[in-house]
């Protein structure tokens, strides 16, 4: 006992590290374990393991449909990655490195899209490109026939929508790369007689290439695990990818959990391999950063008359990413039933849907639930990662292990984590399954890596002598943590909290398998309403929600600017 006390007194960090490590292990390890176990065992009705089998994997690798899903997943992810990189990349370069006008519109679209649940975008696009949408409507009027120009429930439709879903993120991340690039190198090329295009092709692009590749891999990983677009756009057109296969296998009666687990294991392995290359690439990318110092602003390219073309591109993107989807949602919310854009429709405009949202009892409770779950998860994550990230960044006792544990869930696509968490907490003899708690736990596991990233880079920005000075002055580890580290880290902690709060309210995939009638969150509820054909109410509710989240997104960007941290923890 005395020795234990002496050990603890030597360094309180050991006690903190042990406790935090325990919490992380209990949270992060069981989902991975259960997926592996389920994928190679047979179970009886109540979930007890009855034997070992390779049948799930056998089915996966012989079944034609399953192989097609894997192929579809790869095509879908590659296509949407390419589209988002081109759109987001061109935009980022125009905004950060040229004198193009209307730059503010690009930021505006990005901030608002950060606050909008993905599913709202998807629904708006389904409408715009769908049978009754303006595109096909105009085509039919033009040709006088009944044939449609574009079938949105196709791979092309999926790639188009997913690509524009990710382009704001690409814009943000590549924007910071272009901002950090050294303008001297480009100016040297210009002085040597190169045109803007030659400079771009021979100097700027090769310099930015490692960062672009890393980002491409990142978007690819996210698109492989994407659920909203495959579920809403792909499934009605009988186009299945890995995530929707996992979803189907879980919601059929009786659920084929072994098969879902095997699918999930395949995805986890794919993602883990990609993540390995991603971490190598992004380390490489940092080497090419040639930032000189704070407040450094490279001189933008003068596009000449071309700047108006650039301006037109920025406005077009603004319309596609923000104006059109929002107008669509507004139109949907103001009509009593779903119909195409038309003058005749104008006479039917009504605020009935908005009235319903504010008066029907479900909506307020739904909003409160969502906000509370997201806030609780964000708070818990930041509390844990503030400690874990500090110890890891300072190479304290067990720091490496804490870092690995906290970022373990990066390998889970959202839907797979949903399956795993469901499986784990079905077996826990506590009333967690079927309550909001299980969604909160899934959020905590899912977003723990983001919290870790924010704290870690926040700690690295603090000079280690600030802590050492407190130690020499007579403060113990806990006092140093409370009086020096915590206050100085608070900008990073607040930014991380807001980011997690935003993304938790945005994603559908994690919660879709865990929500039950009594415990819903926004994204799942919108999904259900869309499937049930309640388009008007969901649009009205979605718009109100978007306004609320945009306010929080603004706070987040303001905080990021103040704290000097990167916008995304990735």
């Amino acid at each position, binding site marked *: 006992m005395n020795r234990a006390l002496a050990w603890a*007194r*030597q*360094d309180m960090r050991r006690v903190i590290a042990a406790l935090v490590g325990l919490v992380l292990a209990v949270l992060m390890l069981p989902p991975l374990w259960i997926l592996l176990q389920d994928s190679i065992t047979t179970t009886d009705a109540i979930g007890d393991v009855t034997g070992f089998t390779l049948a799930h994997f056998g089915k996966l690798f012989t079944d034609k449909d399953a192989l097609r899903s894997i192929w579809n997943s790869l095509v879908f992810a590659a296509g949407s990655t390419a589209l988002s990189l081109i759109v987001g990349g061109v935009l980022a370069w125009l905004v950060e490195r040229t004198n193009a006008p209307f730059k503010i519109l690009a930021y505006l679209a990005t901030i608002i899209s950060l606050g909008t649940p993905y599913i709202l975008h998807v629904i708006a696009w389904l409408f715009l490109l769908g049978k009754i949408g303006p595109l096909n409507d105009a085509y039919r009027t033009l040709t006088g026939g009944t044939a449609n120009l574009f079938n949105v429930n196709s791979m092309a439709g999926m790639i188009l929508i997913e690509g524009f879903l990710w382009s704001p993120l690409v814009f943000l991340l590549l924007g910071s790369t272009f901002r950090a690039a050294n303008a001297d190198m480009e100016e040297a090329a210009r002085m040597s007689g190169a045109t803007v295009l030659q400079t771009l092709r021979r100097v700027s692009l090769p310099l930015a290439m490692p960062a672009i590749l890393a980002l491409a891999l990142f978007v690819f990983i996210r698109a492989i695990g994407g659920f909203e677009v495959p579920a809403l756009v792909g499934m009605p057109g009988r186009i299945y990818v890995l995530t929707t296969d996992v979803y189907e296998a879980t919601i059929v009666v009786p659920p084929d959990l072994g098969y879902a687990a095997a699918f999930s294991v395949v995805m986890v392995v794919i993602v883990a391999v990609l993540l390995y290359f991603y971490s190598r690439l992004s380390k490489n990318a940092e080497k090419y950063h040639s930032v000189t110092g704070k407040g450094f602003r490279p001189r933008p390219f003068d596009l000449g008359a071309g700047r108006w073309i650039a301006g037109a591109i920025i406005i077009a993107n603004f319309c596609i990413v923000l104006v059109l989807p929002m107008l669509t949602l507004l139109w949907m919310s103001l009509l009593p039933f779903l119909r195409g854009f038309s003058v005749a429709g104008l006479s039917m405009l009504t605020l009935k849907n908005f009235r319903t949202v504010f008066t029907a009892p479900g909506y307020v409770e739904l909003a409160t639930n969502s906000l509370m779950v997201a806030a609780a998860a964000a708070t818990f994550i930041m509390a844990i990662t503030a400690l874990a990230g500090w110890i890891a960044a300072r190479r304290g006792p067990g720091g490496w292990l804490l870092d690995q544990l906290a970022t373990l869930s990066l390998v889970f696509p959202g839907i797979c984590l949903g399956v795993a968490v469901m499986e784990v907490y079905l077996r826990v003899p506590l009333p967690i399954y079927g309550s909001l708690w299980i969604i909160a736990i899934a959020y905590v596991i899912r977003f723990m890596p983001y919290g870790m990233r924010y704290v870690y880079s926040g700690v690295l920005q603090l*000079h280690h*002598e*600030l802590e*050492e*000075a*407190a*130690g*020499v*002055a*007579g*403060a*113990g580890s806990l*006092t140093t943590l409370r*009086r*020096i580290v915590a*206050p*100085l880290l608070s900008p990073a902690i607040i930014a991380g909290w807001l980011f997690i709060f935003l993304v938790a309210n945005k994603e559908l995939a994690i919660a879709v398998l865990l929500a039950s009638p009594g415990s819903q969150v926004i994204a799942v509820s919108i999904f259900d309403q869309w499937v049930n054909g309640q388009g008007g109410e969901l649009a009205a509710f979605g718009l109100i929600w978007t306004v609320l989240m945009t306010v929080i997104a603004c706070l987040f960007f303001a905080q990021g600017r103040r704290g000097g941290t990167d916008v995304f923890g990735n």
Partner: protein
Amino acid sequence: MLTVRDLTKIYANRFDTQAGGVREVSFDLPEGTFFTLLGPSGCGKTTTLRCVAGLERPDAGTIAVGDRVLFDSASKTAVPLNERGIGMVFQSYAIWPHMTVFENIAFPLRVAKGARPGQEEVRSLVEQALATVGLAGYGDRPATRLSGGQQQRVALARAIVHRPKLLLLDEPLSNLDAALREEMRIELRRLQQQIGVTTIYVTHDQSEALAMSDQIAVMEKGRIVQMGNPREIYFRPANVFVASFIGAANLLSGVCDGAVAPGAIGTVRLTDGARIGCLFPAGAADGQPTTVSVRPESIVFADEPLLNGTVTAASFLGGSARYDVRVGDLVLRVVGGAEDVVAPGKTVGLSFAASSAVVVG
């Protein structure tokens, strides 16, 4: 007052084959000494300081302040850094930006173990510390709104406010501009003598070390290679490293002409045949190869020269003039008076006193 015995701390190889750290460092400081650890970067001076502070855990050795053992590898004693009661000024100053100047300085008093001073006492101690460093009235300033020199003074005030027995200074002047550095050098020394606190100062700047210290330890590759007062270090360098690290040194090689007793004057026959009188701190046998160090300012132009050479370069430095003089294969640096003008190309005779030519190896 402070005793350090056989302090050893080896770092695993990271960049080159030479492992960093310190090896068997020992020194004893009387109360009130201003002691400087001097050496190039990577010589282990900062590691030594951090071991004394408790920021690093030594592999072996003993550290004691008075009767109190802070670290002893044999008895497995290691007092945690926050219980050592030492004051320290960091290279980056480490002023906490979220506190006022007053709160920064009051921090050691507020977290003190045992009987903490009351509100009134804290106020008076902090104000006293502020006055000592010449910042009276700055207490309410946010710590972020201070100049470099002021931050340095706040860091110093914070290090002395709780009356430590030992004050550690880790290159505190390296982030200041030249003029301010000169001023703070004098100020620091004055302060140290006023409070009388035993001080360890780490620097790579030899002029700082010479100007401020009672005792200097020159370190190279983790070991103390010479310890002494500034004059000994400058005029009696123990080896080639110390001679060339502390100021400029002309190194002449030759062989000892006849056996010499330690501390006596002897003769060295240089490679080109010239014979010069030198001081042999360690003595030498007949015919032993030797290297002699002569400071540029010890060499004078003379009519009865020891050596003859040709001026190859001359530069006027205001208060003095610097010459490069070729003697055989060697180029000697000579500092002369600013009034004499010796043009390049001219043949000159050089001379120096035997006591200012020291055998260093």
